[in-house]
């Protein structure tokens, strides 16, 4: 069969003329780049080891996990170094694929690459290694690694954050009921996530994708004795499954679409091939569009995009280190990473270049606003951060949607650090006050927990996006990348996504405001909880400081090109090493940075901070002094009344127009009704729909089972049984037991038969 296929393959190539497509990958490269499979293998082995021997180890298996992830981190560092060398200095052979060329499509692998000349120089060749996984139908399915910029970057982020979270957890979950299990699943998660980022084909990606989902399930439900926790775990898994449906279908479509364009096979999962084919225009646009929409569903569930995001806040039921690692820094960005990986497909499918709106950008933009609004009304510090994560993930998806690939990846990179820092900081706080409720159990903690306070502040500023911290650089790049900023020199991006620019700006202000609120409620005012909170131990504070350090300095890795204050050698280093310039990557434009936009966005952020700070640090603080206790909101605040009436009243009576506009309408209006409406839609409409869907399914199941299965289908079966049994009842009367009556029947029958015989013959 296999031989036959090859024959047919070569035949078809000949008939159509051999197409030859450069894939942008190579089999050669440094040892570390070729053997990157070791990195996921280590945590996987540690999972098995902890599972079987963890309980017998002196530290319950945590040492195995830390050692494995630590070595993996070192390997990732070496891989990173190897990649930096490889990126510019590798001159090995590039792999080409033969393609079926159709006259109508006119696929030729060299209509791209020209655009890459600008600024990036040498093409980057991803290091590609495969082994056969299984074969059916004479086609070999491979498993392997595809190491390029984004993969290496993700390897570093995942191993680093995972290592820090491991260390942090030894203190945080010390004495837990299932300490060993916790570390086992952390290891399994690290392994799956690392496998995901180095996946060579979509099937492998799909497997890793589901595996991280399971780890998330197990870790959210870590304390499954309490029902809300297991509910949250189920919700997370099921919501993700809904999206995974899209992944299944999308991967299938791409598999056959690529197979149609490649000779000698009926399908291909290979990411490099699929992307390269999509770039070259060899795949039909319809197939790409449908596949992109399907994959987008998976992204929406995994990366918490509006309207499949509702599981993410609930997922905070898990232990805080889990929230930091899985639900902030790594797993939830799997969706973003997947878009980045399959960018050729998405770029063509959504026609990102030269457009001004598309599904991905719109969903991303919407998510960032929805998430940010919701963060205003939360009491639970982790939920604030969860909504913030949703909002920031929306930022990344939006960036990918507008074609700002590097900006999205860079934001992913910086976000992982500052958000992990914030989450771990919130964990440290709750460790001290034994609660997550900001309003009733926190306040004034800055004196008692100086390390936590300082790192949390750094994380907050980075998240808000004030220069020169990490968040500023990545956020600014995204805003530039929308291409919507026309003042003082256009930005030369892929399209003119003005709407997305507006959404991004709005979110920047909202983010700054809700984080100010969060910081005030947690660290300022007077302590409202019970007991005396103490600063956490070094195993908690040291990871915090490392992450805070990165939150400050990570941004300098990708200072914009042409930025006058930075030496030329430091400009756009991240983009240079992470963004592929290869056959499997689309030709995207790079926006020109703009001083004016940076200044405006900073002012917007400062406005957000200012408004919230004025409300809390001035008004609430004063009210607290007056009342003698530590308040969290104004006692007679506008939220307690009908805000529109109050606004009208204020307008008429006080004429204090500006004051109240800022305070009552903008700040409180956003804080109150708008956010609450968003929250209500979130809880009552979307969340309810999810619940209703579940309930309806059960109801439908019950109806189907009781009415159709039991009555109709089963009834028919029973009726036929009863029928034959009734017939038997009648027939037994003949069976009198008397020999003579039998004989009579016999003779009668013989007579009848004889009669029949006579009549017929």
């Amino acid at each position, binding site marked *: 069969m296999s031989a036959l296929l090859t024959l047919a393959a070569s035949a078809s190539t000949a008939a159509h003329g051999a197409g030859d497509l450069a894939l942008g990958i190579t089999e050669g490269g440094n040892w570390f780049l070729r053997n990157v499979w070791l990195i996921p293998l280590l945590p996987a082995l540690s999972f098995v080891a902890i599972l079987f021997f963890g309980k017998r180890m002196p530290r319950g298996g945590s040492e195995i996990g830390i050692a494995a992830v630590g070595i993996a981190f070192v390997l990732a560092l070496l891989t990173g170094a190897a990649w930096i060398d490889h990126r510019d200095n590798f001159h090995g052979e590039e792999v080409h694929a033969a393609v079926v060329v159709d006259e109508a499509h006119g696929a030729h692998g060299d209509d791209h690459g020209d655009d890459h000349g600008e600024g990036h120089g040498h093409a980057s060749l991803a290091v590609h290694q495969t082994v056969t996984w299984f074969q059916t139908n004479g086609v070999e399915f491979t498993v392997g690694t595809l190491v390029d910029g984004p993969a290496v970057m993700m390897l570093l982020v995942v191993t680093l954050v995972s290592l820090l979270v491991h260390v942090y957890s030894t203190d945080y979950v010390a004495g837990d009921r299932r300490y060993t299990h916790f570390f086992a699943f952390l290891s399994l998660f690290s392994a799956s996530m690392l496998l995901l980022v180095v996946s060579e084909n979509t099937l492998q990606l799909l497997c890793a994708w589901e595996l991280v989902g399971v780890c998330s399930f197990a870790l959210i439900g870590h304390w499954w004795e309490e029902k809300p926790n297991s509910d949250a775990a189920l919700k997370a898994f099921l919501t993700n499954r809904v999206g995974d449906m899209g992944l299944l279908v999308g991967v299938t479509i791409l598999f056959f679409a690529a197979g149609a364009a490649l000779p000698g096979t009926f399908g291909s999962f290979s990411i490099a091939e699929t992307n390269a084919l999509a770039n070259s225009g060899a795949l039909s646009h319809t197939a790409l569009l449908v596949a992109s929409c399907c994959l987008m569903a998976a992204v929406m569930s995994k990366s918490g995009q509006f309207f499949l995001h509702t599981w993410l806040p609930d997922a905070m039921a898990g232990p805080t280190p889990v929230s930091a690692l899985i639900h902030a820094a790594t797993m939830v960005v799997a969706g973003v990473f997947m878009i980045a990986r399959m960018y050729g497909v998405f770029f063509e499918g959504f026609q990102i270049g030269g457009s001004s709106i598309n599904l991905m950008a719109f969903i991303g933009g919407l998510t960032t606003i929805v998430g940010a609004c919701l963060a205003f009304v939360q009491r639970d510090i982790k939920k604030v951060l969860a909504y913030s994560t949703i909002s920031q993930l929306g930022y990344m998806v939006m960036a990918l949607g507008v074609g700002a690939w590097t900006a999205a990846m860079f934001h992913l990179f910086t976000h992982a650090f500052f958000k992990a820092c914030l989450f771990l900081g919130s964990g440290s706080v709750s460790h001290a006050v034994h609660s997550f409720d900001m309003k009733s159990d926190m306040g004034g903690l800055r004196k008692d927990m100086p390390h936590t306070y300082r790192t949390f502040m750094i994380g907050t500023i980075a998240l808000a996006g004030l220069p020169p911290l990490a968040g500023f650089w990545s956020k600014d790049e995204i805003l530039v990348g929308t291409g919507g900023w026309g003042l003082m020199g256009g930005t030369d991006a892929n399209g003119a996504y003005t709407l997305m620019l507006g959404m991004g700006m709005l979110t920047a202000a909202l983010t700054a405001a809700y984080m100010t609120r969060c910081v005030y409620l947690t660290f300022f005012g007077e302590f409202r909880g019970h007991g005396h909170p103490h600063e956490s131990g070094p195993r908690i504070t040291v990871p915090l400081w490392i992450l805070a350090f990165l939150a400050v300095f990570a941004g300098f890795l990708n200072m914009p090109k042409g930025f006058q204050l930075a030496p030329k050698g430091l400009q756009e280093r991240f983009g240079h090493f992470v963004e592929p310039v290869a056959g499997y990557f689309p030709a995207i434009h790079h926006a020109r940075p703009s001083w004016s936009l940076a200044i405006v966005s900073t002012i917007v952020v400062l406005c957000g901070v200012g408004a919230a700070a004025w409300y809390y640090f001035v008004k609430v603080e004063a009210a607290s002094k007056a009342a003698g206790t530590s308040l969290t909101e104004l006692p007679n605040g506008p939220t307690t009344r009908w805000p529109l009436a109050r606004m009208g009243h204020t307008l008429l009576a006080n004429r204090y127009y500006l004051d109240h506009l800022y305070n009552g309408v903008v700040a409180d209006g956003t804080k109150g009704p708008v956010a609450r409406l968003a929250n209500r839609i979130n809880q009552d409409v979307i969340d309810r729909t999810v619940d209703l869907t579940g309930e309806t399914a059960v109801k439908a199941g019950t109806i189907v089972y009781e009415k159709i299965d039991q009555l109709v289908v089963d009834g028919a079966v029973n009726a036929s049984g009863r029928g034959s049994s009734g017939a038997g009842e009648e027939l037994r009367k003949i069976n*009198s037991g008397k020999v003579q009556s039998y*004989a009579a029947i016999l003779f009668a029958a013989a007579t009848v038969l004889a009669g029949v015989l006579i009549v017929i013959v």
Partner: protein
Amino acid sequence: MLLNQFLLLSAVLFSIGVYGVLARRNGVLVLMSIELILNAVNINLVAFGAFRATVGGEVFALFIIAVAAAEVGVGLAMVLLMYRNRRSIDLTAIDQLRG
């Protein structure tokens, strides 16, 4: 050869036998009626054998006589056993096999 007469005789005997089997309640009489049926068949066989000038008919008749003897032996033994157990050889009383 007058085949008809033999067949007529055989038919009459057979009918008497059938009547006996169906109508009599006495076990011994039923056995005797069965004997009549068998002999009616025998007559037929012999008659046809002679008519077609083969010995097959006689051979079969002899075979049937032998089997009939055995059958009567078994049948009488059963009737005897029945009588010992129930002091009656009324066949209508025996209906343990009723379904």
